[in-house]
């Protein structure tokens, strides 16, 4: 499961990154098929820009500035364009997408997350496109405290339950987590949900029983 080690709870970037990493891990464990197009495009753009800069460095180093300045000018222009596209890609296409994939039943799912500066709230936006039908968007904003303890350990159970209970597609794939919240509880506020989760016995019905249990015990020791 996502990072075993502790993170600093004051670091919002760490909180978000750890949570972001947990989403693909969870969904892939439910037999979702992840699609990597977005990140692959980003890597391709970024590394081609880097290669251009590398080539420019080499010819400048070997041949000097005067001999190569027109090539250098072209390289700078190309680098600027590629970097511009990369920035556009990250800001307007990826838009914080951390997961894209296909559920076992064939519907497509896309999860993007965001945080606001100095606000410890995890904003998740899930877009589900069924095989036939309109795409459906579910947005939720939850405090990181729901799945991080004071020492900075990530607790998988409440995090996964949050996804399973709010996104029907995930709930269908993971009925055990979804079972916590019957439709009656769907609209109860998070505190009540937390109380229910606390009462829920851990380990036995967890999909990743050992990881969950391991964390629980660590937490008690701390």
């Amino acid at each position, binding site marked *: 499961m996502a*990072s075993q080690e502790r993170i600093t709870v004051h670091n919002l*970037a*760490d909180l978000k990154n750890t949570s972001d990493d947990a989403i693909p891990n969870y969904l892939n464990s439910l037999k979702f098929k992840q699609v990597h197009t977005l990140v692959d495009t980003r*890597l391709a753009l970024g590394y081609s820009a880097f290669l251009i*800069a590398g080539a420019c460095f080499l010819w400048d180093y070997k041949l000097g*500035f005067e001999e190569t*300045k027109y090539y250098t000018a072209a390289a700078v222009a190309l*680098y600027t364009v590629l*970097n511009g596209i990369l920035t556009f890609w990250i800001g307007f296409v990826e838009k914080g997408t951390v997961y894209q994939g296909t559920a076992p039943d064939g519907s497509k799912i896309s999860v993007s997350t965001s945080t606001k500066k100095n606000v410890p709230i995890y904003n998740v936006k899930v877009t589900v496109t069924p095989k036939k039908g309109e795409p459906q968007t579910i947005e939720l904003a939850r405090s990181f405290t729901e799945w991080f303890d004071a020492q900075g350990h990530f607790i998988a159970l409440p995090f996964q339950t949050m996804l399973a209970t709010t996104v029907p597609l995930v709930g269908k794939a993971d009925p055990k987590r979804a079972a916590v919240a019957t439709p009656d509880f769907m609209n109860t506020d998070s505190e009540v949900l937390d109380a229910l989760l606390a009462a829920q016995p851990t380990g036995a019905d967890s999909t990743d029983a050992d990881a969950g249990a391991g964390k629980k015990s660590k937490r008690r020791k701390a």
Partner: protein
Amino acid sequence: MLSSLQNPRQAAAQLLNFALILSTAFMMWKGLSVIADSPSPIVVVLSGSMEPAFQRGDLLFLWNRNLLAETSVGEVVVYNVRGKDIPIVHRVVRKFGEGDAARLLTKGDNNAADDTELYARGQDYLARRDIIGSVVGYVPFVGYVTIMLSEHPWLKTVMLGIMGLLVVLQRE
């Protein structure tokens, strides 16, 4: 965060962040080079020969295009002596002729004699192509870091190491 390196895509993305910081800094430098048409558009003053105008460690911005007027007497230029790779910042005090055929003589404001002695053997004057730019902008003291780094090379290794470690370990 080291555990995240187990995922190759994430490792590649994290490495890319570091690579892009380096390459963007390099390409900005090269972009400035291309705009100013100078192999080294920013130089650090290494000697006191232009005092009190420039002290050691001051940062100079160079411009090497003659768009409106030729490089002329009174301009402060940076030149490389043929066969040596030490840039010298001095003022042009004499100019005979125009364009590529112009013969230029330089002198440091703080020096009693002109630069004839500094030039290569048999060279009495500079040509325009020896000059890598005229000084157009000035920021005091900021370049002192580079003097420190070149005088204490181990600082370089330490700084690069720390920077690299920070970027690899940290995701934003």
